[in-house]
């Protein structure tokens, strides 16, 4: 709103430089926020934080069994929202020496009248035990398809590493059942349907 005489004929170069730099920083930080997603994932996998388990089969390592102590391995199964399946485990817990391997059977049952895809997502607690739990075979490596009413038994074969930290006496493996994308739309409809009528 100043007189043309007072208006700078061209923008202050210093201001332009500052603006360019701040905009570059902004773009960088926005990209950084998205870069944090894979970084977080990698960080968690490398350190075993957050109970994220490797989803590929590992080889059985022959190592001396440490029979000086027992470790309890517990299994918990639960249903995420939107999948009408049951997941049962033949035994709630097993006791092992570090270095031993074991096989446990899990039973999937589709209680609905439609065939659907589902997946069991694993999580380990305490998280620093994650890296010391080797899975040779697990249903959690892939998605399952169950016909209406179908029942399917699948094994989990795992080994507790000999170098499991000594303060860990109990390892808990949690499997949560989730529907696989494609059934996502149905899940979404259900979720919004639940909250939709509270005005």
């Amino acid at each position: 709103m100043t007189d043309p005489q007072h208006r700078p004929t061209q923008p202050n170069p210093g201001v332009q430089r500052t603006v360019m730099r701040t905009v570059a920083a902004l773009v960088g930080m926005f990209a950084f926020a998205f870069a944090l997603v894979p970084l977080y994932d990698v960080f968690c996998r490398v350190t075993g934080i957050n109970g994220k388990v490797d989803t590929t089969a590992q080889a059985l390592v022959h190592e001396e069994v440490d029979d000086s102590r027992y470790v309890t391995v517990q299994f918990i199964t639960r249903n995420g929202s939107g999948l009408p399946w049951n997941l049962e485990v033949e035994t709630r817990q097993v006791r092992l020496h570090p270095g031993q391997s074991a096989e446990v059977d899990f039973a999937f049952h589709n209680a609905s009248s439609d065939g659907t895809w589902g997946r069991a997502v694993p999580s380990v607690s305490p998280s620093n035990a994650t890296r010391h739990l080797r899975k040779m075979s697990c249903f959690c490596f892939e998605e399952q398809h169950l016909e209406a009413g179908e029942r399917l038994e699948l094994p989990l074969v795992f080994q507790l590493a000999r170098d499991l930290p000594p303060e860990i006496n109990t390892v808990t493996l949690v499997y949560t059942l989730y529907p696989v994308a494609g059934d996502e739309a149905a899940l979404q409809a259900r979720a919004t349907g639940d909250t939709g009528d509270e005005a």
Partner: protein
Amino acid sequence: MAPKLPPHHPVEQSTSATAGGQASVHHAPPPGILRWLLTTNHKEIGSLYLIFSLIMFFIGGIFALVVRAELFQPGMQLVNPEFFNQMTTMHGLIMVFAAVMPAFTGLANWMIPLQIGAPDMALPRLNNFSFWLLPVAFLLLLSTLLMPGGGPNFGWTFYAPLSTTYAPPSTTFFILSLHIAGISSILGAINIIATIINMRAPGMRMMDMPLFCWTWLITAFLLIAVMPVLAGVITMMLMDINFGTHFFNAAGGGDPVLFQHLFWFFGHPEVYIMILPAFGIVSAIIPTFARKPLFGYASMVYATAAIAILSFFVWAHHMFVVGLPLAAELFFMYTTMLIAVPTGVKVFNWITTLFRGSITFEPPMLFALAFVVLFTIGGFSGVMLAIAPADFQYHDTYFVVAHFHYVLVPGAVFAIMAGVYYWLPKWTGHYPNVKLAQWHFWLSVVGVNLTFFPMHFAGLAGMPRRIPDYALQFADFNLVSSLGAFMFGASQLVFVAVVILCVRGGERAPAKAWEGATDLEWSVPSPAPLHTFETPPTFRRHDAADLPAP
């Protein structure tokens, strides 16, 4: 919406020798509302920000009073739990993004050019745009309350999956409004950085700037660093809700805890965004009314920078109970405690400035002194919360609510009010009414402590936050809190009265309205003419005599 500040007579410009000298001809402003819609003047935009923030302060305050009314006694009284959740959420969002942040931006717009001897902000049109984004953003946000399914009900921290899988349908509007508000803050930050770095009066070095400019410069850098992260997080939410991605959905390989990491990576610097400018205001007011230069100016600057840098390494102290590994708990516990050191430097400097000063208790000083005491109480409860093993008990209780309200209400809000009382004579040419201001102060101090102090006890005894009902043993604490809240809310009407009366008239203020004030803004007439410093002033350091001539 159009109070008569600042006065609009180009003639006044030419009468002031310090503020320009040449009688320049200005175009007449467009009439009516267009003047405010199109203004590029930093003073007018500053006033718009402050008025907007005050309106939002009352709207957010009414939401808080709905919450406090429901919590007045145990059992469900007034509102249903769904609406209660929307009230707590909207109260937080409005107060953080629409009241406190715009108030500081308004003060920055008004005062930074005056304090550094610049004619205006570096990018005046951008300035206009960044203000007018705000009413759009928050009308959109408030309108979600009327939508089917209601407004945001997942807490101001909008944790996934509450804000994704289980969110009301209006969440997309919430995301859009937060995007717009974020863009507004970013543009404001760019403008402030460009102004401070490039437009200081000749001879003014960075280390000569008033601390309000310093703290705002550092705040602006924090905004540049973390607002894009917030934008990224809400974009991921948007994609999870509408485009079938699984950033925060464990079913698809995502992780809800990732949301908390990303949110608090933004969120913790955000809480310093809301307090650093307050430090700057208090650092201007205390020396003025103690009639002593600020003790430890350089250490104040370094402490502010230290707080800003540390704020990027403490975010997970909000997440001690998500199941962090022990090493992370310890790391975040120690870095959080480290922040007490630069903060302690600041409190020490303020107290040392007061020591043996010739102190008078004008309204801005009352608020600044209350800030120092009450903010420190909030800081102490922060140190308690930083202790990871103790936090397992405090987490998500009213102790946390007490903590952050102590640093935000008698912290940030009192500092804003102190700043308003301090600079009102410069803005309007009149002193605020002292009697009314004192009433406002004492009612606010008593109200704020009645509201938030009992929350410490309720929280330590285990009362969870964000729940509309509570066990009987918390009844007395909540009764006191609710009474205090209504008292505090009502006393803000006195504040509005003081401001309106001050705009309309009152004791006339000279250019240097406060005896001990030294900064450059006190060299322009009161009220400050619309255009100031069109010819840069010559800046003279207080210690200029000791320096060799340039």
